[in-house]
């Protein structure tokens, strides 16, 4: 077992554990902290997959910006622990969980028992996820979507201010 594989197993285990901790945690703040751990594990996996810029962005944008926003809103609303995780186990929730479990089994079946076309990876070029190659892609063939993203962010800012403003 190579060192890379061992590292993958440790980080993947931490990611799954923190995801379970997020879902089955009663305190919303603890749930948000578990999600931060999960995002950090995913950033480590991105580094393993030679996506250096996205690993840095994952930490800066997700664990830095988005989760701070979540924790700020949780503390602003002053949410306490929930009494029970789910109030009543009605038929809809049981059907939902079983559909999700069936989806997982189906995906693992497809992934594990079908010889995919990308079983053998192409040789590493060494500069796949660097800032230089990302920048060349974003300002080359993906220039129009990149500019439209700025419009999306502007609309989101205006929408968030409009929604959260107190209407007097």
């Amino acid at each position, binding site marked *: 077992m190579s060192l890379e594989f061992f590292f*993958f197993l440790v980080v993947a285990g931490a990611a799954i554990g923190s995801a379970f901790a997020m879902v089955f945690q009663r305190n919303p703040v603890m749930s948000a902290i578990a999600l931060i751990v999960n995002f950090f594990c995913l950033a480590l996996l991105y580094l393993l997959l030679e*996506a250096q810029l996205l690993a840095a962005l*994952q930490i800066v944008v997700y664990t830095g910006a988005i989760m701070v926003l*979540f924790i700020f809103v949780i503390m602003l*609303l002053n949410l306490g622990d929930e009494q029970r995780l*789910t109030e009543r186990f009605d038929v809809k929730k049981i059907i*939902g969980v079983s559909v999700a479990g069936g989806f997982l089994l189906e995906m693992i079946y497809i992934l594990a028992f079908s010889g995919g076309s990308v079983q053998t990876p192409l040789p590493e070029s060494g500069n796949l996820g660097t800032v230089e190659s990302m920048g060349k*892609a974003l300002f080359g063939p993906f220039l129009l*979507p990149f500019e439209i993203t700025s419009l999306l962010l502007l609309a989101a800012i205006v929408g968030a201010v409009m929604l959260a403003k107190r209407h007097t």
Partner: protein
Amino acid sequence: MSVPLPYYLCLSALLFTIGAVGVLTRRNAIVVFMCIELMLNSVNLTLIAFSSFLQDMTGQVLVFFVMAVAAAEAAVGLAIVIALFRNKQTVNIDEMNILKW
């Protein structure tokens, strides 16, 4: 690259399913939002794994745009939660049924 691709895909499927179970069972609207972020991130992991195994830049560019959309979604969604909390003094999604007939 000593970790085979199906390992990454199975991890991503597992994280997506955990997020889906959270969305379907939790009642706190903010925790539901966090579960949606978890699902978005598991899809990002799939895209980056394929991008790395095919040595193609497109997957990583797509992840970049997904991150931008997720940031916008989180800001607007939390604003909606604050507006709802102001009206009903709760974030329990079982009690937010004014759109239900």
